[in-house]
C-alpha cells in the first residue's frame, strides 16, 4: 500500500483561541514495502503525522492517500474503520493500553473488534506470542503480572494480531535496557521482512534509523525538512545539528577520521559492521602501498 501525503495541514483545536498548527505543507510519499524512519526533535510533529496514517486524526486541509482510501478533512470516522485494520499503530509505552484479565484475551481484543472469529483469533494469539519472543504459557497469565518489557511485547502482539499491512511504531523502545532495545528492534526488522510489511518508525535514535531504514523523513517545526536514504540524510552533519539533530556515532567517527587523516572514506558507514570494514580497507590500502 503506497501512502501519499498531499499538502497536509493539521491544526489542533482549529477555529478556537487555542488553535495550534502542528503540521503544514506536508508532501511526502511512502512506498509499499519500505522501512521508513521519521526523525525530528521534540514537538516537530512526528506523532501528529503518524496519526494521519489510520485516520485517528484527519488533515484540516490537504489529503492523505493510503492505498485505495483517501482521507480528507470531511471524511467521517465511521468510514475509517477498514483502514484501521490495515494500518496498525504501536504507540509510545503501548503497555498502557492493556486491560483484559488474560494475555490471550488482550491479544484477541483487536481481531474480535474487526469481526475475526474467536477460534481464529486465539490461534493467532498463540502464533504471535512466540513471534514476540514470549512462551505460550504466558497466554493464561494476567498482563499485569508481567515485567515491563514483557507487557510491552504483549501489547505489540495485540497490534500485530490485526495483521496490518502497514506497521507504525512510535518510539517503541523507550525505557528498555540495552538488550531489550536491541531485541525489540531486531524483532521489528524480522517482521518487516517476513511479512512484507510497510514499516514506519518514529525514533530519536539515529543509530536505529541508519541501521534499519531504507528511507528517512526528517521533520522540523511541523513540516518535512528532508527525505531520502540514510546516506543522503546523514551526509551533512552541520545542517542536521542546526535543527537539533545529530548523525549516528558511526558517521561521526567516519567524518572525524576523514578530517584528521585527510582521506575520503567511500562507505556511508551506517552500521558498526560497515564502519569496521571501511576502516580495515583504509589500513589495508596503506599497507598495500608500502
Amino acid at each position, binding site marked *: 500500500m503506497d501512502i501519499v501525503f498531499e499538502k497536509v495541514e493539521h491544526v*489542533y*483545536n482549529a477555529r478556537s*483561541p*487555542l488553535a*495550534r498548527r502542528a503540521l503544514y505543507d506536508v508532501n511526502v510519499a511512502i512506498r509499499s514495502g519500505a522501512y521508513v524512519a521519521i526523525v525530528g526533535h*521534540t*514537538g516537530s510533529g512526528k506523532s501528529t503525522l503518524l*496519526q494521519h496514517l*489510520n485516520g*485517528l486524526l484527519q488533515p484540516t486541509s490537504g489529503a492523505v492517500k493510503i492505498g485505495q482510501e483517501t482521507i480528507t478533512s470531511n471524511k467521517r*470516522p*465511521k468510514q475509517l*474503520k477498514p483502514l*484501521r*485494520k490495515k494500518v*496498525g*499503530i504501536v*504507540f509510545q509505552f*503501548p503497555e*498502557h*493500553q*492493556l*486491560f483484559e484479565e488474560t494475555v490471550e484475551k488482550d491479544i484477541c*481484543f*483487536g481481531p474480535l*473488534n*474487526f469481526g475475526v472469529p474467536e477460534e481464529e483469533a486465539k490461534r493467532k494469539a498463540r502464533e504471535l506470542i512466540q513471534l514476540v519472543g514470549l512462551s505460550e504459557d504466558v497466554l493464561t497469565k494476567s498482563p*499485569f503480572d508481567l515485567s515491563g518489557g514483557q507487557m510491552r511485547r504483549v501489547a505489540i502482539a*495485540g*497490534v500485530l494480531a*490485526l495483521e496490518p499491512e502497514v506497521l507504525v511504531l512510535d518510539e517503541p523502545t523507550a525505557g528498555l535496557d540495552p538488550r531489550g532495545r536491541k531485541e525489540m528492534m531486531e524483532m521489528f526488522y524480522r517482521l518487516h521482512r517476513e511479512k512484507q510489511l510497510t514499516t514506519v518508525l518514529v525514533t530519536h535514535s539515529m543509530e536505529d534509523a541508519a541501521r534499519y531504514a531504507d528511507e528517512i523523513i526528517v521533520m522540523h517545526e511541523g513540516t518535512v525538512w528532508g527525505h531520502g536514504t540514510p546516506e543522503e540524510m546523514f551526509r551533512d552533519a552541520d545542517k542536521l545539528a542546526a535543527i537539533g539533530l545529530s548523525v549516528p556515532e558511526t558517521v561521526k567517527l567516519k567524518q572525524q577520521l576523514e578530517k584528521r587523516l585527510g582521506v575520503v572514506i567511500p562507505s556511508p558507514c551506517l552500521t558498526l559492521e560497515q564502519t569496521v570494514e571501511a576502516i580495515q580497507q583504509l589500513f589495508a590500502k596503506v599497507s598495500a602501498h608500502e
Partner: protein
Amino acid sequence: MSSHLIIGQYVPGHSVIHRLDPRAKLLIVFVYVLIVFWANNIPTYALLSLFAVVFAALSRIPFSFIARGLKPILWVILFTLLLHLFMTKEGDVIYRIGALSVYEGGIKQGLFISLRFLLLVLMTTMLTLTTTPIEVTDGVESLLGPLKKMRVPVHELALMMAISLRFIPTLMEETEKIMKAQAARGVDFSGGRFSERMKAIVSLLVPLFISSFKRADELATAMEARGYRGGEGRTKFRQLSWKAADTAFLAAVALLAVLLFLLRS
C-alpha cells in the same frame, strides 16, 4: 509536551477582575448568589443584571467566549421558561393554544426565573474564567482557615484539591492517548450496540485507573522523598494580598445587596 489544555476554563488576562484577590472574588460571588434570590421585580433584576454585565465587561474577556460557555445551559433555561409559561396561572390570559393558555404572570415568572438562572451561571463562570484553580484553592484555604481550630484538616484538603487540579490536564491527555490506542485496535467510542459500548468504556477505564494508581503511588513517593510529612511545621510560599480594589468591589456588592433589599417588592 502539550500546551493545548486549559485547566478549568481560566482565560489568562490582566484585567481588574483578574487581579482581584481570590478571597474577594469568592466572597463577591457568594454574596451575589445569595441575593439573587431576593430579586422579584423589574428594578431589582435590572440592578442585578447591570452588576453582572459590568463585572463581565471589566474582565475584558470577549463576550463570544463567555457566551460559548453559557451555551450548554441554554436548554435548561428554555425548559424552565416553557414550564413556567404553561404552568403558572396568574393575571390575564394573553394567548391560547387549544387547551393551553398562557397567562401574563406566567410570562413574567418564566422570564424572571430564567434570568435568575442565567445570572447565577454567569457570575460563577466569571469566577472560573478569571481565577486560576490554584488561586481558588488558596482563597478557599484562607477563608476556611478559622476551621483549623476545630480540627478540620483544611491544609490537607487544600493540598488534595491543588494536586487534583494539577493533574487534570495530565489525566485528560492520558485519556486521549488511551482512546486513540484502543481506537487503533478497532474500538468505536462513538456508537455501536450496548455491549460494544460497554466494552469500549472498559477498555478505556481499566488502563486509566491502573495508570492513575501508578501515578498516585509515584507522586506520594516523590512527595515523601522531598520531605513532606503533613501540615505540621510547614511554611507557606503562596500568599494572598488584599488590596484597595478588593475592598471597593466588596463594598459594591454590599451596596447592591442593600439596594436590592430596599427595592424588592
